[in-house]
């Protein structure tokens, strides 16, 4: 089994939907340890992505083209920290997926490229209470699943599960990157909004593949 352009489009639409549904929750998480805009930022960004998708004259040629559209649109509409971070993630992922079909290893390559983009842009490592704490275990879980022979859908499900656990695990952490780091010790006890949105987006990917 492989994933195709339709999957990519469906992933994007599902991402927009989940980000819309969890807009308030992400705002509230960011309100606790940031400035309360993460939900609004992603809502604005993914709404714009969907509008662009809808306006496309023809179906994109390959998966990379879909992801490139997401990248440029997020970069030009999200702003904040999340805009450049997700924007770079999708841009790198797009470069890794200039194909019409993705097998399990292709999915792993997509996730690895995204994570590399985020780290290249934001210079965070794990344990700093950022989205890297969701992307890193997600990518690792994807590698393990793919190596174990899982289908692309199973790889993405494993990634989403690991992202969820990684996001949960940010709760006790003291932030040392991003806006939450200004709170010092007071940032502990809260879930990182970017880690939570990572989980939502990877879950959307898995559901689109299921």
């Amino acid at each position, binding site marked *: 089994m492989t994933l195709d352009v339709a999957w990519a489009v469906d992933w994007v639409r599902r991402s927009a939907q989940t980000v819309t549904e969890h807009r308030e929750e992400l705002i509230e998480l960011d309100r606790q340890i940031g*400035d*309360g805009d993460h939900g*609004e930022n992603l809502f604005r960004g993914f709404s714009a992505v969907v509008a662009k998708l809808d306006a496309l004259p023809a179906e994109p040629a390959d998966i990379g083209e879909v992801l490139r559209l997401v990248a440029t649109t997020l970069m*030009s509409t999200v702003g904040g920290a999340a*805009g*450049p971070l997700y924007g770079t993630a999708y841009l790198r992922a797009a470069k890794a997926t200039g194909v019409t079909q993705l097998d399990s290893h292709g999915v792993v390559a997509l996730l690895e490229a995204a994570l590399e983009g985020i780290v290249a842009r934001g210079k965070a490592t794990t344990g700093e209470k950022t989205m890297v704490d969701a992307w890193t275990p997600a990518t690792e879980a994807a590698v393990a699943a793919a190596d174990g022979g899982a289908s692309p859908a199973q790889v993405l499900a494993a990634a989403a599960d690991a992202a969820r656990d990684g996001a949960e695990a940010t709760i006790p952490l003291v932030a040392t*990157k991003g*806006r939450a780091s*200004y*709170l010092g010790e007071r940032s502990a006890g809260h879930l990182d909004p970017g880690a939570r949105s990572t989980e939502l987006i990877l879950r959307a990917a898995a559901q689109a593949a299921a």
Partner: protein
Amino acid sequence: MKKLINDPQTVVAESLEGFGAAHPDVVAIHRDPWFVTRAGGTSAGKVGLVSGGGSGHEPLHGGFVGAGMLDAAVPGAMFTSPTPDQIAPALQAADAGAGVLAIVKNYTGDVLNFEMAAELADDVEVRTVVVNDDVAVEDSLYTAGRRGVAGTVAVEKIAGAAAERGDDLDAVVAVAEKVIANVRSMGVALTACTVPHAGKPSFDLPDDEIEIGIGIHGEPGRRRIPLAGADEITELLLTPVADDLGLTGGEKVLLFVNGMGGTPASELYVVYRQARALLEGRGVEVSRSLVGNYVTSLEMQGASVTVLRLDDELTALWDAPVHTTALRW
């Protein structure tokens, strides 16, 4: 949430339209993407100055566009850094052949978006300075560093004057860095503010408590203390600022008391009075002053105290003529 707005999604655009319509002699508004330039553009051969950041801090930055200060300002969504595709054309518009200084407040979002914009506008020689004057944030390897807050006004004013007198890009960068090295701030919030799209206050603060060490994005501060008198609160702000600057007496400084948006002017002057007395008590001479709402957090009630150590050059550049909608002399 009670606001004089039509729609959280349109407030920034409508506000910019109003701003441009009200001040056509000073600024020009560019849309799609949104940014603000001087009405007459950057004069040929002058180093361009560009700043930007989330909206909701007005008059920062659009109010500081004009002769003697910025050439362009890039407003993001409320409390959200602008995007690279907004910033890049502003960098290009501000370039009159001598390159552009980007003045960036130290937030991950601002830093990353300006960085990407500079990559996009690779036809422009862009140098970046990062303002990080907020002593409320412990500066260590393990944080994103200090935030840029009200000290940004001093950086923009003084670097703007340096560019206006004809300094080249290296020299303007050097002046900006000198201001950054000598300016420190700290703020307090009595109430939170409400970002339009969020619809509720950015943090919850009981009626008898205040937040010390807040930033300008409605984010909570370092710690919460019981409500106290203005003199006591001012001391909590001024002391770390003066200590961090290492003021020991004999220095001349600019004392800047900034309102967060919802604080009456009378209260800002009460704070100024005590901050000045404390500085004088340390043997520091307050030779320049600024009091008012310059770097705000929407309707937040609170204030920040900024001190800039002056030398003759910085004093002369501070005194140099400026003609923007928010600062003019």
